[in-house]
């Protein structure tokens, strides 16, 4: 099983279970920005008490499940990690937290028709806001680059009032403005 097969299998299982979810992380920034290599697929889920066990049953042996949650130090959220023993690719299932912004971006998630199915994905605005939040908190250069690429590729389609408002609250507005100013004219 390859990384893309694994990701599609998890999406299929979540859809079959009717579990509210959204694709986040590099898969979402690749969708709206400039694709880059990634060794994991990240999802945010509204977990029910049985969700992890139902997913384990549905996905079966290619996936190695650790029923214990772990703490993710960049985003400060709880997650389950699904590993594929044969390949160095992971699927990370983050719990939807109580943080007001996390709630808002989950509420705003959208359905995209891709690969013959509908997939729930964070919006382009929320990919930018989240990447910049992590860029400031975690000081990860790749988050800045991902945000810059999404801004450049999406161009005028971005709701800037929404992005500015959350970046102001997260203390990432200066980084946002710096990134926007660094994008060369595209025409």
């Amino acid at each position, binding site marked *: 099983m*390859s*990384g*893309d097969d*694994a*990701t599609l299998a998890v999406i299929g299982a979540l859809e079959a279970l009717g579990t509210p979810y959204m694709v986040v992380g*590099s*898969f979402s920034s*690749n*969708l709206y*920005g*400039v*694709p*880059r*290599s*990634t*060794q994991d*697929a990240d999802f945010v889920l509204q977990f029910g008490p049985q969700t992890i066990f139902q997913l384990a049953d549905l996905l079966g042996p290619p996936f190695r499940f650790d029923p214990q949650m772990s703490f993710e*130090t*960049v985003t400060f959220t709880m997650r389950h990690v699904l590993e594929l023993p044969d*390949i*160095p*690719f992971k699927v990370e299932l983050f719990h939807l937290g109580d943080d007001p912004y996390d709630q808002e971006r989950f509420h705003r998630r959208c359905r*995209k028709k*891709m*690969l013959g199915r509908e*997939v729930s994905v964070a919006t382009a605005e929320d990919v930018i806001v989240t990447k910049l939040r992590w860029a400031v908190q*975690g*000081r*990860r*250069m*790749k988050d800045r680059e991902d945000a810059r*690429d999404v801004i*450049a*590729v999406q161009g005028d389609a971005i709701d800037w009032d929404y992005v500015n408002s959350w970046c102001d609250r997260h203390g990432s507005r200066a980084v946002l403005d710096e990134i926007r100013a660094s*994008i*060369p004219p*595209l025409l």
Partner: protein
Amino acid sequence: MEPTQELIDAIYRERVLRARRTPLDQKFLAGPQLFDRACRIMKDGIRSERPDATEVEVEAILRQRLALTRRLGNGE
């Protein structure tokens, strides 16, 4: 010789315009596909450095290097 800002901007512009032309399906799955390709190239490099290594050892070295890359990317 350092590249000029004009050249850097032109390359970036081309990347962005190409991304705008790429279908969503292709962009969505590009991440793991690029990763798979990178792993194959890294394994070829490891085999070249360590011609006596078994496939199990090549895989183990690959995973060590990926873990290091991940830690560096996370600023650890």
